[in-house]
């Protein structure tokens, strides 16, 4: 599994994977959660499933995994109701959520485990625009935390219960997803590579989503430069170049797009925007 893209299987990744799973039916999701958490168990991670509700059949499926019940008994696995992790109908505090998962990861390491791996059905937490906004912000903060910490997560969302636009707002904040809805991704990257990574395609179909994602990522410049690792950015239109320029300007920074795309370079030259420079990523 790579660092960015569309995946067909939730398993097969690494210790830092951050996946978005927009599911059509829960039976299909069950197989993915089972695969994802089984892999964590095998890797010695503490695994946790936050179930949608008390009737969630995925909990039963998990307990059929060899060693899962034994792992539950020794504290290496758990199934919890989602509302014990997230207060339903409230708007989460993104920073507090990250502190909680960081503490849980530290606790798993302190217990001699190899880290933490969580699968959660967060559909109930993104019913209102305010909830979506907070959750999308949280997704990016978590993504940043996961870059170099042994924490992996699968965030499941029920497509039937959410609008396509809501799903797209969440998918675009994940490096990995089971769908290409939204077309682009804004995700964390190692600090040495930049403030964030941009991947996919940016055009009129992302014109609402992209500025939202940038605002939610709330990126901070370093020494006046806001560097985007855009090696996986396949296309950017001029509106999006201007969005990046505006975003950087509001942060008193120059945006740097590190990309191998000559198109981005042509556009920056032709538009003559001085708050965006394009550097060749080779």
């Amino acid at each position, binding site marked *: 599994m790579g660092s960015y893209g569309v995946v067909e299987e939730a398993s097969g990744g690494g210790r830092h994977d951050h996946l978005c799973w927009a599911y059509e039916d829960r039976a299909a999701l069950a197989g993915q959660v089972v695969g994802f958490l089984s892999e964590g168990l095998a890797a010695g991670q503490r695994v946790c499933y936050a179930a949608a509700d008390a009737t969630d059949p995925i909990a039963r499926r998990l307990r059929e995994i060899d060693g899962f019940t034994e792992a539950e008994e020794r504290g290496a696995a758990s199934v919890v109701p989602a509302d014990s992790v997230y207060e339903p109908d409230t708007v989460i505090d993104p920073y507090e959520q990250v502190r909680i998962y960081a503490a849980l990861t530290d606790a798993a390491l302190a217990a001699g485990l190899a880290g933490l791996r969580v699968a959660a059905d967060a559909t109930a937490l993104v019913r209102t625009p305010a909830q979506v906004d907070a959750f999308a912000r949280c997704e990016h903060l978590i993504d940043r935390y996961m870059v170099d910490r042994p924490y992996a997560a699968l965030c499941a969302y029920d497509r039937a219960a959410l609008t396509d636009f809501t799903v797209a707002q969440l998918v675009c904040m994940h490096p990995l997803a089971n769908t290409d809805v939204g*077309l682009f991704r804004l995700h964390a990257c190692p600090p040495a590579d930049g403030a964030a990574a941009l991947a996919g*395609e940016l*055009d*009129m*179909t992302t014109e609402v989503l992209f500025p939202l994602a940038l605002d939610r990522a709330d990126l901070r410049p370093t020494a006046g430069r806001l560097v985007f690792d855009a090696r996986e950015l396949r*296309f950017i*239109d*001029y509106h999006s170049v201007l969005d990046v320029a505006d975003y950087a300007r509001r942060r008193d920074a120059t945006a740097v797009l590190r990309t191998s*795309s*000559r*198109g981005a370079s*042509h*556009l920056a030259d*032709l*538009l003559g925007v001085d708050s965006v420079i394009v550097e060749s990523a080779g």
Partner: protein
Amino acid sequence: MRSGVAAGHRGYFHEAVLYRSEQDLLDVAVPFLRGGVEAGEPTIVALGDGNAALVRDAMPEAVPALSFLGGDVYARPATAIKSYRRLLADHVAAGARQIRIIGEVPPTALGSTWDWWARYESAINYAYDDYPVWSMCAYDAMNTRGAVLDDVIRTHPRTATPDGHVANDRYTPPPRFLGERRPVEVDPIQLQPPALALTDPSPGAARRAIHDLDPGLAPDDLDGLLIAVSEVVTNGLRHGRPPVRVRYWAAPDRIVVTVHDGGSGPTDPFAGLLPAASGGGGLGLWLSHQLCNHVALDHSGDGFRVRLTAGNPHTPR
């Protein structure tokens, strides 16, 4: 104070030179250039290699005072406008009271891509009018087809001859000239069925089709076409009238894409050649004019069609 016949004129003094022989050209060009040098005005030669050499040989003593621009300035109309406006602004900022330029578009511009150069010749009456510039656009009257010469007369307010400067009574102001339906030559590959046709594609789908058809174009040409197709399809979907039909043709040396919608196209007559001040899709069309090797606009009775060519647009006549 401006020197010469443009003295007292405000803005752009735009003349055509329809020469019938090398001597004919020199009889107009040499006094024009010499006058600029003597008046201490920035004096620029943007002729092709042959005519530039002719000028050098005819007035060797003045050559050090002349600026010779390479032929690249006329690579594309929108690029030429941008380059010249920057050059003119720099000279004015440096205190120039008049800038003199004699130039000629390359011979290839007089063929299948003339329609966008005709639009250029018209649009610059407006685009350079912010500056005290006196320019002469040279055309070989013996070897240029009549339709081109007709457009030249209609886009230049005056003609310079060895005998003097005459007003062109057929001069047509830019909004009217640019608002007319321009004849666009059919690229011969358009006589074949398109390799691909899409209706109301997303910009992404319209771009992906180009990757599928790429015959191995130069990377800059391909990247430019990807941006242009994306922008023009976006304009069609956003500002046009459905359906938006996109057709693709590919030959070993080029890709031709047409984007048609049922609307009337941009209302700005300068669309494509100058960046739009606001909205309406003008910026995307302006970028396309700088990234493709030819862009033709066709306001036909059944809607608005943009034809984009990447690679070699100079098809035999």
